[in-house]
């Protein structure tokens, strides 16, 4: 006897570009009475027995198909069907005051004369009728149903009444007069809720006892359909879609249960037209695409073959941990030999002077100094398997105080990362120390400090040739750190050939050296190594982060697989290490 009801009465949102007037809905209601239930059940049993070839039982044909207990109707969009109550009400001409009521009167009289009335119980309220479904707002979500509505629910239900000015669904956002300084309560009621203008239609049913139709208390909402001008159709509750009927229970002394079926009866688009429509859409979009293409043009500025173009948009974010205040940073970019730059591009800069503030334990100065540069790499020598040297950004941090005392705070350098993308790097700095206390006193009282003559001494001096760099005897003191944000873009013709996997990279770097005719640039991109690498005592050189001492070996190729990163510059130490075994 258990029947499968559909309990999901939430609303469903559909989108359609077709005219809403083509919407048709088939509504069917059926009363569930005790005899109806039994006969329904027996009917099912009989039918199953019939399938097995047993004699039919006439008596069990459903006798409850009386007029009052079942009805089906196909309703079009905004099609007005009158309830018994309305028929009774609008028959007398004196009651009709507004033009709408007068129109209803005419229609009802015509209907009565022609004796053509298609509906008994099911009727509709169109957009023009001033009907608001109060119960719907309160009942759906909670058990037991809450009788008092929140103010928001009241406002949302009231939208329809105030929608007479019918604001068009405009997508333009106001550009002037953005703020309403003293909003009226009317404005607030309208703007605090979702008030897109919508056309509504309610499918109703008069579920009174048969013969006693026409009482307003017996009206129940079957379905609410809303559309807006954008082709959005909201149906609440949704079509049954073979999920079982909805359950309607009447109030009043005699609680009756009705089944509700809703079905979309709109005429579907014939196959040919559908195809034509799809072709038209495809056409439209491809033409739009061509139009956009024509605006942009076909020529995309590509670097010449064999050249890698590097674009760096960077930012000096902050400097932290320095002794003195009023810091500024002076940086410049050094391009190694195979790199060239766009003319009239400045490769150096000075930030503003920034006062620090305490953030946590550090004194931080935020610069937010943007810089950008573009450079081109051309592989000069294809002979050995040397990897390109990437540009280096040298910087020094200086402080200038109120007394015009100028001090160096730190030197550091940053090798532009060889992988494209976003990098946030924090680099430690050091400053040179002179032996003895006099220099420090001078620095404190008067300002001035030893500076490096050539800033590239910070890394590998330009004049350096050889394979053993020693900074023995040089004293420095560790100072704070500087944070950079870099966004790197690499642009070359070889990139569009597709990405290479990790395993293939190492092979390629050794293969590359053997193939002189191939452009070296594309391969460069996929290698994650930094160029300087250092000798360490540990034989495993896979993805190590390690200290480097002041002994560095330069000029050899990076045979290590995986990335080796530079972490910290410590004080001078003249230790010797083994070369990496590979």
């Amino acid at each position, binding site marked *: 006897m258990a029947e499968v009801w559909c309990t999901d009465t939430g609303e469903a949102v559909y989108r359609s570009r077709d005219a809403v007037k083509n919407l048709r809905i088939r509504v069917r209601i059926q009363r569930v009475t005790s005899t109806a239930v039994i006969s329904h059940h027996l009917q099912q049993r009989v039918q199953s027995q019939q399938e097995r070839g047993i004699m039919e039982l006439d008596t069990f044909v459903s006798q409850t198909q009386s007029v009052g207990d079942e009805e089906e109707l196909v309703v079009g969009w905004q099609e007005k069907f009158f309830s018994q109550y309305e028929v009774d009400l609008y028959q007398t001409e004196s009651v009709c005051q507004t033009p709408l009521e007068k129109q209803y009167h005419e229609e009802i009289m015509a209907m009565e004369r022609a004796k053509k009335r298609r509906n008994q119980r099911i009727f509709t309220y169109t957009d023009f009728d001033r009907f608001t479904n109060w119960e719907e707002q309160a009942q759906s979500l909670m058990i037991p149903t809450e009788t008092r509505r929140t103010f928001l629910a009241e406002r949302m239900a009231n939208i329809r009444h105030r929608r007479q000015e019918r604001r068009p669904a405009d997508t333009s956002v106001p550009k002037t007069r*953005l*703020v309403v300084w*003293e909003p009226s309560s009317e404005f607030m009621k309208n703007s605090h809720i979702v008030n897109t203008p919508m056309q509504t239609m309610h499918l109703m049913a008069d579920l009174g006892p048969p013969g006693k139709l026409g009482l307003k208390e017996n009206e129940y909402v079957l379905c609410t359909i809303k559309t807006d001008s954008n082709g959005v159709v909201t149906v609440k509750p949704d079509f049954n879609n073979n999920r079982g009927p909805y359950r309607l229970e009447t109030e009043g002394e005699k609680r009756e249960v009705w089944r509700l079926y809703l079905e979309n009866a709109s005429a579907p688009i014939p196959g040919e037209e559908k195809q034509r429509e799809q072709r038209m859409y*495809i056409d439209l979009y491809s033409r739009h695409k061509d139009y956009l293409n024509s605006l942009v043009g076909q020529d995309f500025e590509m670097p010449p073959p064999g050249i890698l173009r590097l674009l760096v948009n960077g930012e000096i974010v902050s400097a932290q941990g320095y002794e003195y205040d009023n810091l500024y940073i002076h940086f410049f970019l050094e391009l190694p030999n195979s790199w060239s730059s766009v003319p009239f591009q400045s490769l150096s800069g000075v930030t503003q002077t920034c006062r620090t503030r305490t953030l946590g334990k550090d004194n931080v100065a935020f610069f937010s100094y943007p810089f950008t540069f573009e450079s081109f790499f051309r592989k000069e020598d294809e002979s050995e398997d040397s990897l390109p040297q990437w540009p280096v950004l040298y910087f020094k941090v200086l402080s200038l105080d109120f007394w015009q005392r100028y001090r160096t705070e730190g030197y550091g350098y940053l090798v532009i990362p060889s992988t494209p993308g*976003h990098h946030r*790097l924090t680099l430690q700095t050091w400053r040179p120390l002179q032996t003895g206390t006099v220099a420090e006193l001078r620095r404190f009282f008067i300002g001035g400090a030893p500076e490096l003559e050539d800033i590239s001494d910070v890394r590998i001096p330009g004049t350096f040739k050889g394979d053993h760099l020693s900074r023995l005897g040089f004293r420095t003191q560790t100072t704070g750190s500087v944070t950079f944000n870099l966004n790197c873009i690499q642009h070359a013709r070889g990139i569009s050939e597709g990405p290479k996997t990790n395993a293939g990279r190492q092979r390629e770097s050794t293969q590359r050296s053997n193939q002189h005719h191939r452009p070296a640039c594309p391969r460069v991109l996929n290698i994650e190594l930094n160029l300087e690498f250092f000798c360490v005592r540990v034989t495993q050189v896979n993805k190590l982060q390690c200290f480097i001492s002041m002994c560095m070996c330069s000029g050899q190729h990076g045979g290590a697989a995986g990335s080796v*990163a530079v972490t910290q510059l410590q004080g001078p130490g003249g230790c010797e290490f083994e070369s990496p075994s590979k």
Partner: protein
Amino acid sequence: MTANNPSVFLLMVNGQIECANFPDYDDLYCKYCFVYGQDWAPTSGVEEGISQITSKGRDSSQNLVWNFPLDITFKSTNPFGWPQIVVSVYGPDTFGNDVVRGYGAVHIPFTPGRHTRNIPMFVPESTSRLQKFTSWLMGRRPEYTDPKVVAQGEGREVTRVRSQGFVTLQFSIVTKDMKKLGYDTTSTEQTPTTRLAGTEQLYGT
């Protein structure tokens, strides 16, 4: 649409307006809508909505939770005008009037996957003290004529706003045919940052 040669790409947004953090206010509800460029059109789903009214929890979390679902699919021929979601929060003031508590907007994320966005909210503010007092007294706080204003930058120079509160949104994004049309929105798979800070030392692998 032929699968080999698509002319539009789809952006499917699922998610929720999860919660709000307004230390001074309670009993808030929010409303959202999407703002997008001319070449974008929603193909399915709900474009705007209004949430329930929620109060702060009894424990000390001070979070106002809506968990209000978002579900929309856009189609477009052009990434210009990428959709933004505009959230407006309203609530009662001390006299019981319904006033605006914050506006905020954020772009829908580009990359497929799960994202959380914590957007700060602001309200327009009157310039003179007297106007501030009368609007507090009468319960008529300045509001934007159309909340979609916060999704664009024009006309902002004449407004003065005060920041208050945050709203947390969660998105799950799926895109279709973006790669075929030549747009690459995947994040880089390599190790994201090269840290030279020296604070963590990892020896060996």
